[in-house]
């Protein structure tokens, strides 16, 4: 009975009727993921770019370009604010990969657990309903091929390639008498593995060897009563990294601390309805990292988000209504004209089941600030025209206030003067204003139960207006390290259209296959808008196979194709390796990753070995980023239940 109650509350905490992609613990283990940021390697319908394999810029099915990182991160359905001016290093989330039950990926604008999410969602759900005492410890490392080896001592010498890094993590948890307590720790070390990056980072690091270092602790407590549920979590992570500030045109050494506390709970009104609250506090503090240019981000952002929500209706008409509060406070030694911003929200999510063939959803959220307001509205309908075939239509419109963004430009206009104090000239034409986004999706789905085969074909349209667009013209430089000139246009408009195909096949309990392909194109757009979107490939394809020939042993493989990308900002940059000009285009690539995983001692020991980029293709996501060669990863995990 107690377990039923627990599962009931978990279901209530999860947003219903979601068409989301789930990456489970099993998927992550079978694919040999080493660190949290590796999750991007398994996300099908998001485009991403990374310089170092740690911090990613993402574009969820055309919802934003790499210039607008509007996607949001949640931990157990509660927001966690890790942004540093739009850059999100998932590893800073204090939870270790081994503590995660699943990761939920959402690629449609929606109201998600009381928050307006117009750019996609990554929600990390930890393991909280495993009963009994559990402890785990894991360690692993990665190494990229291409070292000079003994040829270092010959006339055939080449640059040294360092380790991709290593990780040590572990956790202890106990769930007994309706009380769950868990604590976990993780430590990661990594090094730049690319020649140009190594030179660039060594140059700014001064007298120390460039590296990434992360330490994090996470504590979670859950309590289940007969009609009440509460989850409290606390985490802290310290991160030393070479943070890529795109507007500055290079990496800056930054020491950052993330402090996080959250609480959520639910009171049952009756079997179908409950009232729940969510509260989170994130203190995000990038600070001075020793560097030869004496650059200091000097920034602390504290974010408080809270909302209370109730289920309403019954039978064929159900929904949720809620109110919320979002408060952002900033402190910095740089001059600021505004140190905090507060907004109130009111929202509703309604579900109308007209018949077994037709179901519609209506979402509306209004957000109010001192003298202005924004909103988001969504209508989605499902039509089942046979037992196995479904058509859905999803349309959204939102008005986003500039204050809702973590953009550096919003803070520049508020007086945060990091760029101009450090030699970057920029020109903002006009004032930042409310932006508008209209999205429409039409999806055809075909399903063969029970989960044998799923096929979805989606055609999508995105229209943006009054968004800001950056134009960046980097002055030619030997190691891509020149501060540059920027123009920022505040009334860019443009449209994106695309079509995506996703297919999941379960051949048996032993083999699962996922296939994804997408084509995307911008339409009749202004130059800056067009340029921003040209850094996202028009065509992309991926296939993942999970194969478990016998219990306790599995193989997985993933094939990816990324089309060509264009980076206009880097048109005039010199290439350090062969002194050629014009690296505007980043070549398309095909990569194949394979992993073998084996359990020992009745699943008490788990080992995995992975090879990424088996073909040793030239994998690069960004003109100045690392080139990811053939790499191998090994890890071992000890599990005690």
């Amino acid at each position: 009975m107690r377990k039923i109650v627990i599962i009931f509350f978990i279901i209530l905490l999860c947003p219903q009727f979601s068409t989301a992609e789930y990456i489970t613990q099993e998927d992550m283990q079978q694919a040999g993921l080493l660190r949290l940021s590796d999750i991007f390697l398994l996300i099908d319908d998001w485009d991403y770019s990374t310089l170092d394999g740690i911090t990613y810029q993402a574009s969820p099915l055309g919802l934003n370009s790499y210039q607008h990182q509007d996607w949001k991160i949640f931990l157990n359905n509660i927001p966690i604010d890790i942004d540093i001016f739009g850059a999100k290093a998932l590893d800073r989330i204090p939870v270790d990969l081994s503590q995660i039950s699943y990761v939920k990926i959402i690629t449609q604008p929606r109201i998600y657990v009381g928050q307006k999410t117009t750019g996609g969602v990554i929600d990390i759900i930890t393991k909280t309903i495993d009963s009994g005492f559990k402890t785990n410890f894991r360690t692993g490392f990665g190494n990229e091929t291409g070292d000079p080896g003994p040829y270092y001592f010959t006339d055939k010498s080449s640059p040294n390639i360092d380790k991709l890094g290593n990780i040590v993590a572990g956790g202890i948890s106990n769930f007994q008498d309706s009380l769950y307590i868990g604590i976990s720790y993780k430590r990661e070390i990594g090094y730049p593995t690319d020649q140009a990056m190594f030179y660039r980072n060594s140059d700014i690091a001064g007298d120390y060897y460039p590296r990434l270092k992360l330490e994090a602790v996470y504590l979670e407590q859950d309590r289940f009563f007969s009609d009440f549920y509460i989850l409290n979590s606390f985490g802290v992570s310290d991160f030393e990294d070479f943070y890529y500030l795109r507007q500055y045109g290079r990496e800056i050494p930054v020491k950052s601390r993330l402090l996080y506390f959250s609480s959520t709970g639910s009171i049952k009104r009756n079997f179908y309805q409950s009232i729940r609250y969510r509260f989170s506090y994130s203190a995000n503090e990038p600070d001075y990292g020793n560097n030869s240019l004496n650059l200091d981000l000097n920034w602390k952002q504290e974010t408080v988000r809270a909302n209370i929500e109730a289920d309403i209706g019954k039978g064929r008409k159900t929904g949720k209504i809620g109110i919320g509060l979002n408060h952002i406070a900033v402190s910095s030694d740089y001059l600021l004209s505004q140190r905090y911003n507060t907004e109130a929200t009111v929202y509703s999510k309604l579900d109308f089941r007209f018949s077994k063939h037709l179901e519609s959803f209506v979402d509306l959220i209004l957000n109010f600030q001192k003298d202005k307001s924004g909103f988001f509205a969504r209508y989605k309908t499902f039509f089942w025209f046979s037992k196995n075939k479904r058509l859905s239509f999803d349309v959204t419109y939102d008005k986003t206030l500039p204050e809702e963004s973590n953009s550096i430009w919003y803070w520049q206009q508020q007086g945060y003067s990091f760029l101009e104090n450090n030699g970057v000239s920029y020109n903002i034409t006009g004032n930042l204003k409310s932006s508008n986004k209209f999205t429409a999706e039409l999806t055809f789905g075909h399903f063969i139960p029970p989960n044998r085969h799923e096929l979805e074909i989606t055609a999508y349209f995105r229209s943006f207006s009054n968004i800001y667009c950056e134009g960046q013209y980097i002055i030619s430089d030997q190691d891509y390290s020149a501060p540059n000139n920027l123009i920022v246009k505040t009334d860019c408009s443009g449209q994106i259209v695309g079509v995506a195909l996703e297919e999941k096949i379960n051949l048996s309990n032993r083999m699962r296959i996922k296939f994804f392909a997408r084509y995307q194109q911008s339409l009749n757009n202004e130059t800056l808008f067009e340029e921003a979107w040209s850094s996202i490939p028009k065509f992309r394809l991926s296939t993942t196979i999970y194969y478990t020939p016998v219990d306790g042993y599995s193989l997985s493989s993933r094939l990816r194709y990324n089309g060509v990308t264009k980076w206009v900002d880097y048109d005039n940059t010199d290439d350090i390796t062969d002194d050629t000009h014009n690296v505007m285009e980043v070549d398309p690539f095909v990569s194949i990753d394979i992993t073998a995983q084996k359990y020992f001692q009745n699943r008490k020991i788990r080992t995995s070995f992975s090879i990424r980029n088996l073909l040793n293709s030239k994998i690069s996501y960004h003109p100045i980023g690392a080139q990811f060669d053939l790499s191998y990863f090994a890890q071992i995990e000890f599990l005690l239940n």
Partner: protein
Amino acid sequence: MFYLIILLLVIPMGLFGQEKSKAFKTISISANYLQNINDNMFHDYWKPANGFELSAETEFYFGKVELGAQLFSINAKNIEQPDFLAVNMYIGWSWEQKLFSKFSIYSGFLLGNYYMNFDENNIDVNLKTESEFSLGLKAGLKYNIGKNLFINISGRYQIIYTYHRIHLSYISIGLGKTFVTPKWLREFLN
């Protein structure tokens, strides 16, 4: 195309695999001498990389798996290059086919970490040692000489994934013994 080849390799391995009950039934420990036989750019600087190998092999769900270590002491031809010690720790998979009662042939691959320790004191401590991925292919024959003892003769090909790839070919000869896997070890491996 390459991806399809991999799939074609992986799927049959499962379809025609051994029963789980046969996995890890016996363990064969063998010791082999490796004689480097090729000559390429690597050998412009270093003498043939001869070595010694110790490995343990057992039946897997399909084919056999192997865990082993190879030790090489490699001497430079010139004073400008250092001697170095190399240890290749590897896991491998192979398929063995019995031809006659005492005679079987096998082929397989090895994936390893090729660790190098250079006998050079005047360099940065970070460059004193190096690790690199290695891929090996092997084919050979086993002849049972009684009492679960066997002679192992094989040909090996090894690639070390340094910037300039190191390609090494070997012939090897060695002696091995097969044991019934102790119950506790078989439970552990399963």
